[in-house]
């Protein structure tokens, strides 16, 4: 697997036509700095301090780091929800700042952290909102009316993929956390994106669904060439399922590379300020993180 990505990453991002997507990386982030506009006391603090990063097409990138390291902000910058004050982000060679919000939404699907919903939308209604970016353009009535048969077929497909067809007509607020999470992923899939950006997608899921979602992301990468950027607290999950890992701390890149390059005890200790054990996963051979057990502090 490593060889595959080596060959890709050596390709330079040229300045050719935008239509041909192949030579371009999915994301090319160049020294991006971002801070929230002055409100409150830490107005001067940069949330992202000069991040440069390249995400290749078809890569699954895991973004990890302690709380407040800028993981979620980076994801929002990639989705153009937040606009960086400095630096440049390119999506398949196109400058993100010059694209419309609708253009971005046709390419990048976002799975946000679960937030409480106030209005009683059903699962089907929520998922089909993923078709909103593909509404007709350029008319003053843009977005008016109902979805086409094609939209409905795509939404149904997304619901089938996420195994939520049986709750299609239930109200989202009545579902369990895990089901809601899968609804959000289905909505992003309904956008038929080339890039999927996920913020803590497994936070509310039980083991079965964690494994299912991660395998699904791998499968989508293989079948559709989908590029995935995944923000997570779970180092092991990221280590097992991501091609590459980006480790952030205080808005800066600490390490960016293959799991074995990032998940190293010394690196993690410096960032998380606590001692962890790293060994090999018995099946995949990829690095695995374990918290120091009680014996370590007591016995030895």
């Amino acid at each position, binding site marked *: 697997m490593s060889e595959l990505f080596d060959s890709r990453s050596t390709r330079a991002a040229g300045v050719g036509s935008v239509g041909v997507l192949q030579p371009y990386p999915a994301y090319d982030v160049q020294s991006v700095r971002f801070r929230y506009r002055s409100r409150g006391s830490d107005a001067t603090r940069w949330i992202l301090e000069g991040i440069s990063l390249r995400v290749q097409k078809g890569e699954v990138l895991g973004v990890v780091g302690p709380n407040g390291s800028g993981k979620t902000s980076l994801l929002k910058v990639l989705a153009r929800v937040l606009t960086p004050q400095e630096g440049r982000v390119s999506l398949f060679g196109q400058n993100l700042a010059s694209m419309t919000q*609708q253009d971005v939404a046709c390419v990048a699907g976002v799975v946000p952290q679960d937030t409480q919903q106030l*209005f009683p939308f059903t699962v089907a209604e929520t998922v089909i909102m993923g078709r909103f*970016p593909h509404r007709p353009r350029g008319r003053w009535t843009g977005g008016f009316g109902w979805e086409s048969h094609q939209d409905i077929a795509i939404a149904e497909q997304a619901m089938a993929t996420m195994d939520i067809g049986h709750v299609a007509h239930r109200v989202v607020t009545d579902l369990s956390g895990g089901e809601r999470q899968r609804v959000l992923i289905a909505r992003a899939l309904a956008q038929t994106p080339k890039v999927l950006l996920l913020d803590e997608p497994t936070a509310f899921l039980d083991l079965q669904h964690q494994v299912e979602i991660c395998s699904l992301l791998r499968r989508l990468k293989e079948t559709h060439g989908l590029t995935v950027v995944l923000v997570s607290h779970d180092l092991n999950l990221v280590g097992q399922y991501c091609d590459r890992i980006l480790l952030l701390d205080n808005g800066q890149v600490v390490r960016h590379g293959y799991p074995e390059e990032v998940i190293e005890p010394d690196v993690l200790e410096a960032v998380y300020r606590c001692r962890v054990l790293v060994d090999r996963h018995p099946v995949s051979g990829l690095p695995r993180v374990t918290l120091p057990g009680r014996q370590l502090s007591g016995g030895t």
Partner: protein
Amino acid sequence: MGILAFTAMAVCVICLHFGAQPIAYGEILRVFIDAISRKEIDGGTSDVVDVILLQVRLPRILLGFLVGCSLASVGVALQALLRNPLADPYVLGVSSGAALGAAVGVLLGAGTTFLAETTLPVCGFAGGLLALVIVYRMAASYEQLPIHSLLLTGVILNAIFSALIMFITSILEPNRSYGMMAWLMGTLTAPTYGGLVGLAVYLSIGLVLLFVQMRALNVLALGEEVARTLGVDTERAKRSIFILAALVTGAVVSVSGMIGFIGMVVPHAVRLVTGADHRLLLPASALVGGTFLMGSDTIARTMISPAEIPVGIITALAGGPFFVYLLLWRKDRLA
């Protein structure tokens, strides 16, 4: 939707029947056939029943329908935009902002000129927009303003605007200040057909532009960041919806004063039936809102007839308790 439209028409006919002097349905039918065969609705007859029906009751009922439609639609849009099921132009202080604008207009003499029908809605629009901008700034300075804080903002705005309105009322001459008081309480008075058509055109432009946003409202109701990730230019969408809401509210308030709670009660009730999809919710709320206000106004006209009470009292008496019920017993749905 067809059923709702039919209900609205049926209620309209029933409302024509009631009044200080009930008019039989056969009589109503005869007057309409007469009017159609004469090809004019205004004047051309000295028949008392004709005059009561066509020049007093019908325009007033139609006005009620327009006002109710508009208030309910604006309520739906504000609820989605502020992500708050209790939002309502009245509760948020938008109506009182618009009323203040109109009152300032009256104070400056706009109400006495023939320009009243055009300038007062503009004054109302300005006042309503001011109130909305303040409410939204408050809401936006937090990620999402908690529901109770948003209501509190509305309460404060209402208090400030009411104080200013009372100040203006108190410095007007007594006969004009009485008219202003009656208007502030929320009254529907029979307009001329010219004025009615003008208002209808004005409101339908606002409402059509609002209805075009129905699908965007669905996405906006999920939250602003989510809306952006689904390809909504949120700044633009917000701006246009706020301006439309202020425009419609301003016009409505300048003709009918402060009629409260329709924008909150109606969408709530309709949402229970249609679900949250704005493509059903918005038109259904508009029809139900119009029907509801026609009915309320008929009660206001007939309850102590021949005297009338302001219809704002009826809607507040119906809506206020509902509001309290939502706050107290449906906390789980709101917090």
